[in-house]
């Protein structure tokens, strides 16, 4: 299903026939996707298509149950790992709705998170002073005011500030695979440029990014190597960046036709068997 863009690059994430449900309601119904080092993939689709579920399942949200299929991260079975372990080995989820945690200092939160990843990599953990130097340098990636470090995690942050804080976390954790769930939602164009600029700066031939988005406008600023359209819990079509432009022009109506055709096939099959 997925186009091979950099055939020689190592596979970072391999999703095979992934099925998942929440509260016994099946949401993902057979997702296949292969992501290699250096690639940027975009998953698009309407609300309810399963794209946010895909991101949560990959990050290990306990409310979702994987019912079939597999996910391998650099050859390791990702689904065996706790969410914290997935983060430490280099998987990052940028949240659509970053959670406000009053009373927990943003700086301390960032430091604890950064140290968890550093420890896993065998790097020395940073004390408060050393960490302040590191974080101040990284603030420039998202043009964030240092005052946000002294506040509680996301508390009272605007939508744009929350998303910048997500990208700041990404800059500190230096993930191998970053999944950004609707990072563009609720952002004005200036905030969008800053966030997209941050993502572009952090992209390298050694890592990969999976953008989950509703709109083409993010893809004007971050050029994807592959675009996938999700509907009814699977990837319906994959292509290059031109697929996103096509969606922008013609909308998602064709998706319904395609789904109806697939459903028709599924319904006819038993008859043929009979």
């Amino acid at each position, binding site marked *: 299903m997925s186009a091979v863009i950099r055939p020689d690059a190592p596979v970072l994430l391999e999703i095979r026939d992934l099925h998942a449900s929440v509260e016994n309601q099946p949401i993902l119904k057979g997702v296949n996707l292969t992501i290699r080092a250096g690639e940027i993939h975009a998953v698009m689709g309407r609300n309810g298509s399963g794209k946010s579920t895909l991101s949560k399942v990959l990050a290990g949200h*306990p409310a979702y149950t994987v019912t079939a299929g597999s996910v391998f991260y650099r050859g390791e079975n990702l689904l065996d790992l706790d969410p914290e372990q997935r983060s430490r080995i280099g998987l990052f989820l940028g949240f659509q709705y970053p959670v406000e945690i009053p009373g927990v200092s943003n700086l301390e939160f960032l430091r604890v998170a950064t140290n968890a990843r550093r420890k896993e990599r065998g790097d020395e953990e940073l004390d408060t002073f050393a960490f302040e130097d590191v974080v101040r340098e990284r603030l420039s990636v998202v043009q964030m005011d240092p005052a946000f470090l002294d506040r509680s995690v996301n508390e009272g942050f605007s939508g744009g500030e929350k998303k910048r804080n997500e990208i700041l976390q990404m800059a500190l954790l230096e993930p191998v695979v970053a999944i950004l769930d609707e990072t563009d939602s609720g952002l004005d164009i200036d905030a969008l440029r800053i966030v997209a600029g941050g993502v572009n700066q952090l992209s390298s031939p050694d890592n990969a990014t999976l953008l989950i988005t509703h709109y083409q406008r993010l893809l004007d600023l971050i050029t994807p190597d592959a675009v996938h359209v999700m509907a009814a819990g699977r990837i319906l079509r994959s292509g290059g960046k031109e697929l996103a432009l096509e969606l922008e022009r013609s909308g998602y109506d064709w998706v319904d036709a395609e789904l109806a055709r697939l459903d028709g096939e599924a319904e006819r099959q038993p008859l043929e068997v009979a």
Partner: protein
Amino acid sequence: MVAAPVVTAAAAGSGAPALAWLAELAGAPLPTRRQEDWRFTDLTALAAIPVGVAAPAAGRALDPWAELNLPAGVTRLTGTAAEAQLGTALAASGCDQHWPVLLNGGARPALLVLKVEGDAGSLELPLPVSAGEGVAAWRLLLVLEPGARLELLQVPAPAPGQRQLLSLVSEVVLGEGARLQLGCLAQGHNHAALLHHLAVRQASASELQATLVSSGWGLARHEPRVVQEQGAARTRLLGLQRVDGRQLADTHSFVRFDGPDGELDQLHKAVADGSGRSVFNGAVQVPRLAQRTNAAQLSRTLLLSDRARIDTKPELEIVADDVKCAHGATVSQLQSEELFYLRSRGIDATTAAGLLQRAFCHEVLRELPAAAHRHDPMTALLGAA
């Protein structure tokens, strides 16, 4: 709700030798769980306290505050000047005959009466206790003259490992326009019990903020009781209690508006872990003359164990018709979305849960007087992170 097994009057009174001495000291039998105010709090646990009076540790002679350094504007009253005002706030707020108050009176409390004038800054009042076992009692009266201001911190703590019952009764009289920020940071242990009454009379335009924090006691009971005598004053009550193991913490608050235009802002929080029990009862009385009262009460409990138990109840009596009285109670577990957010950043589940507990407590702890920081209240409450 399951009917609680009732402690018989005999067991709570003269029939139980281990408690009889306490009844004798108070001059009244112990309350039983048949009484509405004690329905969830079983004082038979006090049977573990050995007979004896563990006097507060004295600085000189028998006065633990003989060497207390008072800030400018604060004077200590003694003799008849002191006694004239004793008991008025207890009587006004209807608790002078409460058993813990009677016990305090019978236990020969160390007595301190302070008059406050002008802006007196901040005072940390030590409540030193000797190493003996038994009852230790303090009685405090604060009179803030009109326009006076004070920040007061009390840190009652039992002697380590000693079976002690600490009895603290504080009375406060706030003159017109006076402002008191009071904090009580009470860190106990499993063998110790705390009975704490705080009775306040507020004149108009006065402001009271009382923040009562307790954790770790085998049994702790706080009764903040406030009367706005002419209304038109501001009262802010904050509470935070944490129980674990088989501990019990109970806050019974009472606020009455005896005039119009009064304000109350109350937040009570509890963290219940292990087989701990947390009780909150928030009484607010708004009689007919208390028009335009604006009162808000919120009780929030974090339930960390399925063996822990919470009883929380607002008790609003509103007769006046032109009032705003809001109340609410929530009991929740740690929010799964918050936990997942932290875990998705590599923070293990235990550490994440600890961070969220700290966040829950922070909202109340930050309201303690600045002097409380020296005691590292978060660590006192939750242990090292």
